[in-house]
């Protein structure tokens, strides 16, 4: 199968897989330790609204998704600070409303919507060079922000009340984290699609959590696991001629189930 590496589309797929894994490992770690899985699910599904708006206004759907997803994340963050009680209902509403906006605007757009299926389910083998560049920039931003604000983000995700007593800008840091989640979600749309984003965002970090004791090491292991899962998924999908996004997710899910099973056996001893 090595002759496949000679094709540019396959090299692009591998690069996209690695870039997505880096973002997933770093941001997914915060999502898992701060228990923000459902918020992230809401943000990622709302991204479909941005895709629909992109089609309707004739701009790059991924660009539309970036703006719309960041705005949704900030809106959810603002709501979270005020309405702690009904947060799960609000997430459900935003989740469905985003999808509904997407469906409506895709319907209103005259003509056929090309690639619509690949935004929903991903197709890493079709990632164009321009998107690779966009992903590279987003990864650079995510890595730089987390490297600069590692201590602050740790304090805020660990014990926000204490961070506030220490006079840290807790609200701004929480919103920043939501924006980083939104950017990561946009990156992952190309790789696994909107519907499956949440799995790639959380599974590598959740497995890594079982074997690490610090945020930093948890991130590093999650990045490595993400790379292994995406590359295995891409390879399998090529060999078996099945959709790549779904294959990557199933590889990750099987690994997670395996890790949990081993953990149970270890604790049983």
């Amino acid at each position, binding site marked *: 199968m090595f002759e496949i590496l000679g094709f540019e589309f396959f090299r692009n797929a591998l690069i996209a897989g690695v870039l997505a894994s880096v973002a997933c490992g770093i941001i997914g770690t915060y999502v898992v*330790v701060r*228990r923000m899985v459902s918020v992230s699910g809401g943000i990622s599904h709302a991204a479909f609204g941005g895709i629909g708006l992109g089609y309707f206004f004739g701009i790059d759907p991924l660009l539309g998704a970036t703006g719309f997803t960041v705005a949704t994340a900030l809106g959810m963050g603002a709501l979270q600070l005020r309405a702690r009680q009904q947060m799960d209902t609000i997430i459900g509403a935003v989740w469905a409303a985003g999808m509904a906006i997407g469906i409506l605007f895709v319907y209103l757009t005259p003509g056929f919507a090309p690639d619509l299926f690949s935004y929903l389910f991903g197709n890493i083998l079709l990632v164009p060079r321009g998107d690779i560049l966009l992903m590279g920039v987003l990864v650079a931003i995510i890595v730089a922000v987390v490297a*600069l*604000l590692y*201590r*602050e983000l*740790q*304090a805020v*995700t*660990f*014990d926000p*009340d*204490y*961070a*506030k*007593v*220490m*006079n*840290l800008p807790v609200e701004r840091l929480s919103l920043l984290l939501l924006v980083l989640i939104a950017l990561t979600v946009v990156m992952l749309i190309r790789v696994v699609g909107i519907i499956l984003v949440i799995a790639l965002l959380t599974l590598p970090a959740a497995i890594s*959590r079982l074997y*690490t*004791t*610090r*945020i930093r090491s*948890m991130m590093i292991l999650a990045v490595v696991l993400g790379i292994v899962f995406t590359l295995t998924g891409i390879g399998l999908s090529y060999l078996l001629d099945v959709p790549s996004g779904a294959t990557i997710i199933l590889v990750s899910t099987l690994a997670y189930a395996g890790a949990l099973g081993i953990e149970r056996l270890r604790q049983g001893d």
Partner: protein
Amino acid sequence: MTAPVIEVEDVRVRLRGHTVLEDVSLAVYPDDFYAIIGPNGGGKTTLLKVILGLLQPSSGTVRILGGTGAAARRDLGYVPQFRTFDFEYPITVREMVLSGRLGHITRIPRRYGADDHARTEEALETMGIAGLADRQIRNLSGGEQQRAIIARALVGDPKVLLLDEPTVYVDAPTAAQFYSILDALRERMAIVLVTHDIGVIPEHVTRVACLNRRLYTHDTNEITPDMLEAAYHCPVDLIAHGVPHRVFSEHREED
């Protein structure tokens, strides 16, 4: 008399249509060991949150070392109610204690200096958990976790240490050990302790108040029957085994 470290004046808090605190005023002085008791739901945690700036009162003022700004709060050490944050979080004891220094670092992005590390080791020693510094907090016993939380509060050099129900989840011997640690800390800072359990009030408190929406105090270290009745709205049996009797007034008529 020296200036108070905490001054609460006529604080009133309404949450979701209910008045949780009303006309609450109190002053804590540098050498105080102040115990605030009261029934569950009496507003004890709310009062601490108002002092800490986590909750804005509907009316009234809070001054920390004479100042009202958020920056003054870095002189407060806070030991939250046990289990209010996630003990499964991947963080070592040393990292957690070190994070207590963040409030004192003003340059951005914040970086820990040699001084921050030195104070962290000192706080770990003080609490007797230096040997556990590289362990993950979820792998500690309840008493050890409690000491790690106090070490995080100490590392910020607080002028006042505020503790919210610190002994609820620990067994009796651990609680006793815990109070002897507090006694040792008294020389360095004022302590405010909040609890619903009048049986655990340590011997060395300097003042006691009862809180149930309103604050009842005689500015002494005695809990009088009228304070308890006012706070709990029913006569409370003061004959408790093992309670240091000096806390309780034997003369019911004495004010």
